[in-house]
C-alpha cells in the first residue's frame, strides 16, 4: 500500500539506512567533541577536555571546575553546541514535515507565517517593551508566542469557508505573514530607537550565542519528542505527498492530521526561535539533500534529517565563531549563504523527485 509513491534515492535498502544512521550518530558525537575545542580564544585542547571530564565524571583536578576557563567551556561553548544540535534536528524535521503538509518541496519550517509571527513578537518585545513580565529572555518568549499564535491563526484562516487543504494553508500563511510583517514594519517605522532597530535586525539574523543549559533542556526535549512523534507518523506523511483524494481512497482522512502536524511543528520551531532567533535554509536544504540520497520514504527520511541537521548546524556554528577572528557571524547569515547556492544547485539537477504525483 502506498509503495509506488515513494521515489528511491541513490542509496537503497534497510542495511544501508541503518549503517548511515549509526555513522551519523557517531559523526554527531565526534562533531560535538571536536567543535568544543574551537572558539574565538585559544584555550588548550587538553584544558577543554579536563573541564568536561571534571564536570561530567568528577574526574581530575577540581581547579577545572571554576574560573573563567571553566565558564568559557562549560557555560559558553558546550551549551551553544548542544543548542545547535537540538535546533538543527528540530528545524530539519520540521522542514520535512512542512514540505509534506503543504505538499510543496519549497516549504521550509517558517513557510506558514511562523517567521513573520516570530519577528513581530521580537519587535514588540524590543521596541515596544512588551513581554517584560517574562524577565530575562523576553525577546525569545515573545517570539515564541508570535510564532505559535500565527500558526493558530493560519489553521483557523485555512478552515474558514470549508476544510483546509494544502493550498488554502499556503494562502492563509501568506496572508498572516503579510499582516505580521506590516505590523512589525509599522512598529519599526514609528519607534524612534536607533539601537532598538539594530537589536531587531541582529536578532533576526539568528545566533546561538545566548545558549544556556536551561534553554538547551527545553529545546532538546521538544525537538526529541517532536522527532519521535513525527517518526511514528511516517505513513501519514507519505500519504500526504499523494494528495487528499488518494489518501481518502486509501482510507485515511488527512485533514485533522495536517493541522495537528502543523501545530506540533509550530511548537518545535517556536522553541528554536525562542532560543536562537531565525535560522534559514536548514529546514529546506537538509531534507532535500537527504531525500536525494535516500529517497522519499518518511520512515527513513525523518531520523536521517534529524541527525544530518544536527551535525550541519554544529559545524555551521563553529564556522560562525572562527570565520572572523574575535567576533562572530550571526548563524542565520551563514546558513543562508551556504544554503541558497546548494539549493539552486539541487534545483538545477534534472533527476530530482519529491515523491507523490509530481
Amino acid at each position, binding site marked *: 500500500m502506498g509503495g509506488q509513491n515513494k521515489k528511491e534515492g541513490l542509496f537503497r535498502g534497510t542495511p544501508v539506512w541503518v549503517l548511515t544512521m549509526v555513522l551519523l550518530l557517531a559523526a554527531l558525537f565526534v562533531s560535538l567533541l571536536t567543535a568544543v575545542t574551537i*572558539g*574565538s*580564544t585559544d*584555550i588548550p585542547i587538553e584544558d577543554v577536555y579536563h573541564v568536561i571530564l571534571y564536570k561530567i565524571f568528577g574526574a581530575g583536578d577540581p581547579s577545572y571546575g571554576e574560573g*573563567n*576557563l571553566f*565558564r*568559557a567551556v562549560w557555560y*559558553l*561553548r558546550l551549551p551553544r553546541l548542544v543548542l545547535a544540535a537540538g535546533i538543527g534536528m528540530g528545524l530539519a524535521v520540521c522542514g520535512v514535515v512542512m514540505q509534506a503538509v503543504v505538499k510543496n518541496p519549497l516549504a521550509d519550517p517558517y513557510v506558514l507565517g511562523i517567521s513573520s509571527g516570530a519577528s513581530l513578537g521580537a519587535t514588540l518585545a*524590543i521596541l515596544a*517593551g512588551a513581554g*517584560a513580565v*517574562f*524577565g*530575562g*529572555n*523576553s*525577546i*525569545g*518568549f515573545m517570539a515564541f508566542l508570535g510564532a505559535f499564535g500565527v500558526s493558530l491563526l493560519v489553521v483557523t484562516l485555512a478552515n474558514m469557508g470549508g476544510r483546509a487543504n494544502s493550498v488554502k494553508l499556503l494562502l492563509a500563511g501568506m496572508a498572516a505573514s503579510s499582516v505580521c510583517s506590516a505590523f512589525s514594519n509599522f512598529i519599526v*517605522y*514609528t*519607534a*524612534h*530607537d*536607533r*539601537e*532598538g532597530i*539594530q*537589536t531587531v535586525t*541582529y*536578532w533576526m539574523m539568528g*545566533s546561538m*550565542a*545566548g545558549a544556556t543549559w*536551561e534553554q538547551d533542556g*527545553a529545546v532538546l*526535549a*521538544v525537538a526529541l*519528542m*517532536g522527532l*519521535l*512523534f513525527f517518526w*511514528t*507518523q511516517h505513513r501519514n506523511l507519505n500519504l500526504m505527498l499523494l494528495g487528499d483524494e488518494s489518501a481518502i481512497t486509501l482510507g485515511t482522512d488527512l485533514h485533522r492530521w495536517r493541522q*495537528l502536524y502543523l501545530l*506540533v511543528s509550530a*511548537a518545535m520551531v517556536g*522553541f528554536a526561535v525562542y532560543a536562537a*532567533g531565525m535560522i534559514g535554509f536548514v529546514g529546506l536544504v537538509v531534507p532535500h539533500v537527504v531525500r536525494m540520497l535516500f529517497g522519499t520514504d518518511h520512515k527513513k527520511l525523518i531520523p536521517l534529517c534529524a541527525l544530518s541537521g544536527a551535525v550541519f548546524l554544529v559545524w555551521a556554528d563553529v564556522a560562525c*565563531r572562527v570565520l*572572523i*577572528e*574575535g*567576533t*562572530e557571524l550571526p548563524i542565520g547569515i551563514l546558513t543562508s549563504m551556504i544554503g541558497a547556492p546548494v539549493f539552486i544547485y539541487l534545483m538545477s539537477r534534472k533527476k530530482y523527485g519529491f515523491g507523490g504525483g509530481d
Partner: protein
Amino acid sequence: MKKAISLLLVLAMAVNLAACASEKNPAKDSAGGTSLAAESEQGQTEQQQGQSEQISPTEQVSQTEQPSAKDSHYPVTVTTYDFEGNEIQTTYEKAPEKVLCVYQGCVEIMIALELEGHVAASYGLDNPVKEEWEAGLSKMNYNEDVFAPDKETVLMMEPDLILSWGSIFSDKNLGDAAEWIANGTNTYISSNTRSGGHPRTLENEYADILNIGKIFDVEEKAQAIVDEMKDEIASVLSQTQGQDAPRVAIIEFLNDNITNYGASQLGGDMVTQLGGVLVEPEASSVGKEDLLELDPDVVFVVYMARTEGVEEEMRGKLVDDPAFSDLSAVKNGRVYTIMLGDMYASTVRSIDGIRTFAAGMYPELYE
C-alpha cells in the same frame, strides 16, 4: 496502537510545553532576580564592610596615620542600567584596572579623563577620534579588525569593568549585566542607550561623565568637562537673550526616509537647551511636504562619518533637491551638517555637538 503512542507523545509534548511556559520564566525571572538581589546584597555587604572598616579600630589607626583622600573615596556606588533598562547599583572597591571600552563615546571618555592606563582593550569606533586624542588611543589596545568583541573573548580577557552601550548586554552579545557583576566584572552603560523608551538628554551625558569620574576618582577632571559644556550653553543663552528663538529641524536622510530628531533625542535636547525651538518635537520621521510646511529657519543634516565626503553628500540631499529650493533655510544658506557621533551617546564629544548647534543657530556668536 500506533495512534495511542502518537497521542501519548503529543500529550507529553503539550505537558512539556505547558510546564516550560509556566515554569521556565518564573524560574528565569527568579534566577535573574536572585542574582540581582544577591548582587545588591553583595554590594550592601561590601558597603557595610567598607563602613565597618572605617569604624574598626585598626582601620582608624591606619587612617589617622595616613589621612589620604584616596582611602576615603572607595567604595563608591553608582547607578547604571541592565539590558532591559532596569536600574542597577554597582559598587567599586577601587579604580578598575582592566577596563573594556566598546563604542565611540566610551572609548573617548577614557582618553579625555586621561585614564588610558586603566584600559585593557577597546573596540568600536564609528569615526576617528579627535587629533588630540590619537596618542591616548594608541595606549588603549584598540582593535581595528573587530567592531565589538564576543562573549568568550571578553570572558577570557577578565576585565573588571565593561564600559559600553546597553545593546551589548543582549543575550546574543555579552549577556546580561547581572551575570557579569555576579562574577566580578562591573558594567556601566551610556545612560542615553538605556532601553525602554527613556528620553535622551544632555543631563544623562553629564551624569555619565561624572559617574566615570567618580568610579576612577578623577571627579575634578570630570566636573571640568561637564562645566565646559554647561558654561558654553550659559554663555550662548546670555548673549542671545531677548532674541527670537530660532526654529530648528534636525534631520537625517536614511534610504528614502527623512528621520527627524525630536525633543526626546539628545540632539533635540541640545537645541532646546540652547534656546532653539524644534519645529517637529514629536515625530520620528518627516515627509518632504511636512518639512516644506514646517519651514524651519535652520536645518541640521545628520551624517555618519564612516566614509570620506559623506558630509557634503548628505547636505546635498537637502540643498540640491529642487523640491526644497523654496525652503527658508536653503534660500538663506542656513543648512548645516552635524556628525551623529556628536549628538548620540556622545559623552565628552557633546561639547562639539553643543558648539555645532549653537554656531548654526546663532552664527553671529561664532564669527
